[in-house]
């Protein structure tokens, strides 16, 4: 079927015309509100309060969501929203990593706000079309597309019955449908989910950008927390934005010279140094696969271990040499010379509905190689690429899928699951074929795939109640917290990183803090106070990227020469100053690096209070499964016996001589769990929270975040 026929079948439900407006110092000062229940389209003002206290991006998303929901709102209720916003810096073309979109909704997995940071052109093109944010509420009866034409000033809601649902096809169809010519395709960005988002709670969103060399829309993912599930539940098939005329000054920055200067400086730095540092331009985040293995941090077999003899089979060089096309301009927004959005071209699929098709696969990211591969005991690069492709097009979060499958495999090997329960799938570690079939079942909404798609938290309950599994064991090995699956790093030997995962707002994702090297290898943060300081600074600093439409990678996946002589190399001080400069350059404000942290603290504390308002966000919700803290099983202990024995002696003063492994495990566990509790005490204190994890009113006032509705929530819990 061609796209003309598909377009002909569209039924216009609502058309809304708007003035194009003016972009000034990074803001359009308007939000596009769309209600799918009654097909209402409105322009809402972006207030000074929003700009002062929430900045943009996920700050705006959280604020709109707060106002849209009640403490009783479930993810599938019509009042739940999906909010997409870039941020004031978003859309500048001169500084690497400045085109991100932040997506916020109530998560089906956690029941509280989730935020996801995604590349592709949608956020910037939305802004250039006249909108700082897109706020979608309500539910459509039938599948719809929301189309925004940013040159004509038109928004349409159209029923769209014939297009595909899977991301790679839908992205292509809509790019073709709305582009006037090949050259026009780069002016279009599409947001899609995929078929598995209809049957699982781990659905993601794909954001496209058109690759002018490969001549294919590329897919970047807002992966975490099931936003795609909410999207399909609202019967949204896709969002499409079209804007022609991107230039470097569309944000109407206050001082473009500051932006040019910082941008060119960083381009030069990347040119000079990337090939001897992280090789982001060659292989992107996958550069650390073998590094993680060598430092015993690469999760293997459901986070039992941190390395595996077969890791060389999925090392970064394997992907570079055989699969990933080299020398392409792989930025997910203009001006990203770090260029980490790698792709394998002409990859022939071996399974599933697209078997035999030759496709372009976005990836593999490090998380995909680790989650799909090593964590499931699968050391096969072609499986990783194939599963990566299907996860994306079906709209399955690769991180959750990897961690879920690893959990299932451990349950299978322990006899909690068997062939009968899985409908014939032999889900042992290493079984790539069974893992792919599980993924295809998620797309079809069939069999054990449907159960797996509920996520680890719900599976633990089902396995306990229906299969008689030991709930304590499942609690120990199920790598989820707050309902969200862990991302792919082994935090056992880094207490700070246990906090980096456990003391997060949205759940155990490493985007708030990754402190393993600072803590475990560099020994830079030995005391609880040091760790607490790091667990204050880094989460706040990194939150800031999400307020401004920025990517984290150009901050520290490249470091200038000056860094080795700086006083705090882990912070990359020169790059922090770049961010201060480009923020001031765009907005005309005059912040310094301290105010940057305060901007984040406001939103961070707001999100914590939001969690509390939804019935979560307290100390009890910051507990983590013991698999992330220490050895759960005898085989884990014995695999690193020398290390653990030594710790018993040196840290606890316990003589391991002549003791059984079980005895030693018990002592070690008690110690490690106490350490985590002490860490929580220190971090809460540093963050200005009570020992139950509630931000104090004094803290909120000092930040200027003592809004009446915020204080009201907090007061009930103090």
């Amino acid at each position, binding site marked *: 079927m061609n796209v003309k026929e598909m377009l002909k079948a569209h039924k216009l439900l609502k058309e809304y015309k708007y003035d194009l407006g003016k972009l000034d110092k990074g803001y359009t000062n308007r939000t596009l509100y769309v209600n799918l229940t009654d097909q209402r389209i409105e322009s809402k003002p972006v207030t000074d309060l929003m700009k002062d206290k929430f900045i943009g991006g996920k700050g705006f998303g959280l604020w709109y969501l707060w106002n849209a929901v009640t403490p009783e709102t479930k993810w599938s209720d019509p009042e739940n929203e999906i909010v997409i916003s870039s941020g004031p810096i978003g859309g500048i073309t001169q500084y690497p990593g400045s085109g991100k979109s932040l997506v916020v909704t109530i998560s089906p997995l956690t029941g509280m706000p989730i935020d996801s940071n995604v590349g592709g052109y949608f956020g910037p093109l939305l802004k250039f079309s006249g909108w700082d944010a897109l706020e979608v509420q309500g539910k459509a009866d039938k599948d719809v597309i929301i189309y925004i034409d940013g040159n004509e000033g038109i928004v349409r809601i159209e029923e769209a019955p014939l297009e595909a649902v899977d991301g790679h096809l839908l992205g292509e169809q809509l790019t073709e449908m709305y582009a006037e010519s090949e050259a026009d395709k780069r002016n279009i960005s599409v947001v899609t989910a995929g078929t598995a988002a209809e049957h699982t709670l781990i659905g993601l969103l794909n954001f496209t950008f058109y690759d002018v060399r490969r001549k294919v829309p590329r897919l970047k993912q807002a992966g975490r927390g099931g936003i795609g599930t909410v999207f399909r539940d609202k019967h949204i098939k896709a969002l499409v934005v079209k804007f022609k005329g991107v230039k470097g000054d569309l944000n109407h920055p206050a001082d473009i010279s500051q932006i040019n200067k910082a941008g*060119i400086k960083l381009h030069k730095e990347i040119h000079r140094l990337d090939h001897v540092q992280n090789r982001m331009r060659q292989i992107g985040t996958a550069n650390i696969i073998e590094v993680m293995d060598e430092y015993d941090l690469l999760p293997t077999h459901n986070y039992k271990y941190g390395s595996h003899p077969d890791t060389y089979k999925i090392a970064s060089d394997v992907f570079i040499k055989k699969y990933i096309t080299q020398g392409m301009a792989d930025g997910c927004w203009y001006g990203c010379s770090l260029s980490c959005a790698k792709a394998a071209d002409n990859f022939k699929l071996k399974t599933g509905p697209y078997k035999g098709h030759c496709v372009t696969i976005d990836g593999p990211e490090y998380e995909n190689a680790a989650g799909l591969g090593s964590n499931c005991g699968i050391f096969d690069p072609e499986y990783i690429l194939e599963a990566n492709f299907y996860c994306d097009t079906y709209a399955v979060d690769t991180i959750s899928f990897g961690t879920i499958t690893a959990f299932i495999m451990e349950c299978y090997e322990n006899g909690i699951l068997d062939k009968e329960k899985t409908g014939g799938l032999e889900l042992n570690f290493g079984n790539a074929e069974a893992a792919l079939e599980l993924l295809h079942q998620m797309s079809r909404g069939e069999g054990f795939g449907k159960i797996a798609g509920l996520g680890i938290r719900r599976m633990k309950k089902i396995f306990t109640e229906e299969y008689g599994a030991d709930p304590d064991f499942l609690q120990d090995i199920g790598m989820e917290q707050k309902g969200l699956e862990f991302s792919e790093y082994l935090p056992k030997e880094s207490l700070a990183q246990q906090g980096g995962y456990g003391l997060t707002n949205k759940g155990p994702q490493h985007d708030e803090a990754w402190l393993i090297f600072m803590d475990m290898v560099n020994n830079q943060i030995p005391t609880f106070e040091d760790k607490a300081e790091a667990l204050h600074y880094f989460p706040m600093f990194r939150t800031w990227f999400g307020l401004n439409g920025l990517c984290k990678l150009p901050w520290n996946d490249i470091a200038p020469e000056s860094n080795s002589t700086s006083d705090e190399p882990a912070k990359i001080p020169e790059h922090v100053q770049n961010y201060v400069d480009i923020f001031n350059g765009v907005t005309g404000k005059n912040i310094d690096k301290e105010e940057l942290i305060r901007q984040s603290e406001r939103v961070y504390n707001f999100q914590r209070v939001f969690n509390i308002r939804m019935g979560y966000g307290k100390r009890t919700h910051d507990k983590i499964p013991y698999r992330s803290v220490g050895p759960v099983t005898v085989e884990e202990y014995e695999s690193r016996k020398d290390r653990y024995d030594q710790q018993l002696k040196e840290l606890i003063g316990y003589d391991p001589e002549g003791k059984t492994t079980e005895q030693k495990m018990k002592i070690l566990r008690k110690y490690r769990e106490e350490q985590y509790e002490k860490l929580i005490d220190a971090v809460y204190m540093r963050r200005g929270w009570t020992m139950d994890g509630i931000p104090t009113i004094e803290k909120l006032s000092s930040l200027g975040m003592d809004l009446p509705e915020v204080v009201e929530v907090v007061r009930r819990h103090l």
Partner: protein
Amino acid sequence: MKLLEKNEAKCIACGRCEEICANAYFKQENREKSCIQISEKQGENKINVCNQCGVCIDICPVEALYRDKNDVVRVKKDICVGCFMCVGFCPEEAMRQHDDYIEPFKCIACGLCVRECPTEAIFIGNRETAAVLETIAETAVVEE
């Protein structure tokens, strides 16, 4: 391949070429807006100008850089998004940027400066493209 060639030993750093270039491009005699840049380093005059190697062509995210019929590398301003990656990645540091403009600019070997140069320190060459690129590849810093 048409390109601006140089004989730095003859350069007297009078700056005339810079003025001519800036004037041709921007109607201003502002040397910072010249594609050719003259500087002095340890008593020697240096001429910095594009050698038409074309590394920037692959760096550009929107294919705004291309070779024209004379194999000269040129910028399509209408599709350029002003990211300045070409500026940062130019091996010769000869791709130019000025804050008054949102696109980069570069030497297109037009030859206007050549006519004004009092010492014949610069001249328009016409060499076989393949041979030039080979020489450049041999001397270029290996990246990636």
